[in-house]
């Protein structure tokens, strides 16, 4: 990550704090996310992780402080993989239909797909090695395949930045491992990754930065600094106990 891109700030938070339902749920945070970073967001349930992601997606304004986005980070051109509600597991839609919907952010009034959209979708399916699933129904796929499809939808929507909210929740260990491997290779290809995860191992192995969120305080820094911090020590300890 020594190329020119690495020096580019994508998102900068200046004392930004978020509220949910009118109640503050995060402390004021100040940090910068650079192009090519792999940021892992950790924290207990209810510590405002998903709320922060909504802020990074510009779906929510901070109630205090500000977020500055780089000019080339066009609004809505962020790839998002939301937390799964379980409603979609048996949805009758083909893989191509689902991944194509990632291109809708490029269409304003009339949302018809163009040849360029179809090519982008095919390219992304090949990139994630799921082009053999293109015409398969989402409801007949395994959990790991379903997540891969939703990741493809995020990729096709994005201009190089992916925001993932607990993407491996509900996956078996093998499928989780595969999924993290895929994220790691995407990061090595230059994608910026921001991911909420309960899995501390992915911070230890893959992430470049850690953001640990709690109601009143937070830690943001390179993975190595985090691993030496008091917060990490107590969090990791608690996770191991579970």
């Amino acid at each position: 990550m020594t190329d020119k891109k690495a020096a580019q700030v994508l998102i900068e938070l200046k004392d930004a704090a978020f509220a949910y339902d009118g109640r503050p749920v995060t402390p004021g945070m100040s940090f910068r996310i650079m192009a090519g970073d792999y940021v892992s967001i950790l924290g207990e349930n209810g510590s405002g992780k998903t709320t922060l992601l909504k802020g990074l997606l510009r779906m929510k304004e901070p109630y205090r402080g500000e977020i500055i986005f780089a000019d080339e980070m066009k609004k809505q051109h962020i790839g998002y993989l939301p937390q799964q509600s379980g409603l979609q597991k048996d949805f009758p839609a083909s893989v191509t239909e689902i991944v194509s919907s990632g291109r809708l952010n490029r269409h304003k009034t009339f949302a018809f797909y163009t040849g360029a959209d179809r090519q982008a979708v095919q390219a992304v399916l090949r990139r994630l090695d799921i082009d053999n699933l293109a015409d398969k129904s989402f409801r007949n796929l395994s959990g790991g395949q379903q997540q891969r499809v939703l990741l493809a939808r995020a990729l096709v929507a994005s201009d190089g930045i992916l925001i993932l909210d607990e993407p491996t929740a509900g996956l078996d260990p093998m499928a989780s491992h595969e999924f993290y491997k895929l994220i790691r290779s995407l990061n090595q290809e230059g994608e910026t990754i921001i991911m909420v995860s309960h899995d501390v191992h992915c911070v230890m192995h893959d992430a470049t930065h850690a953001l640990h969120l709690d109601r009143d305080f937070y830690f943001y820094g390179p993975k190595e600094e985090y691993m030496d911090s008091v917060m990490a020590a107590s969090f990791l300890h608690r996770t191991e106990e579970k």
Partner: protein
Amino acid sequence: MILEFLSYAFLRRALFSGLLISVSAALVGSSLVLKRYSMIGDGLSHVGFAALAIAMIFSWSPLLVALPIVILAAFLLLRISENNPLRGDAAVAMISSAAMAIGILLISVTKGMNTDVFSFMFGSILSLSDSDMILSVILSVAVVLFYLVSYNKIFAVTFDETFAESSGISSNFWNSVLAVLAAVTIVLGMRMMGALLISSLIIFPPITAMRLFGNFKQVSIVSVLVSAAAFLIGIFSSYALNLPTGPAIVLANILFFLIFSFLRFWKRRKRVTAGGQE
């Protein structure tokens, strides 16, 4: 027999407008069912019944009274279900039975229970006036056209509201659009199917299509075909055998559902035996 049916101008009109309503019900129904909003459709039909009662008392145009009331109710029911998924279910049931009770009370106090009430509840495609018919045709064509133009966005919001929101597609707006489309379809279909049976027109065809098809476009097309076929079978058999139209259409829909379910079962069994032989 069919030719004899078609020789009556009013039956031809009923056939044409009924077919269009069946098509729009099937399209809107696919999204409603997948968004777990089937109960909203049911609630709206009961509100529609109360609205028809009011229209009858004042001798106003049934469609013009029912449309705004049911559209308003659709917004209300949608908000309730979104804000409180758990109690939303109960709230929808409460509103629908309350509307039904108010409608029946209003009618029996003012005009007494009569054949109109019967046709409101169980439908009568022949009770449509010419102006109702024209309005039905215009509105159902509008619903279908709007659905086709917004197809990709409706798909996105139906599949994943959160993701759609991140792409700049307002789920609030599109859910409201869906609520309006559902309200219009229900009001139009209610004269034909009756307040008690209209939700079947919205729910059966998509569920039937989903038995066999796993792709949203196929589900949409097949549910339109199933809905149109069930309507035709229903209306001709009701003419030939002198059956009430609404129940005959529902019966045809049940038949399709059973056939599709059987085919699915058969397909799976075949796959299992084929797998076992390998």
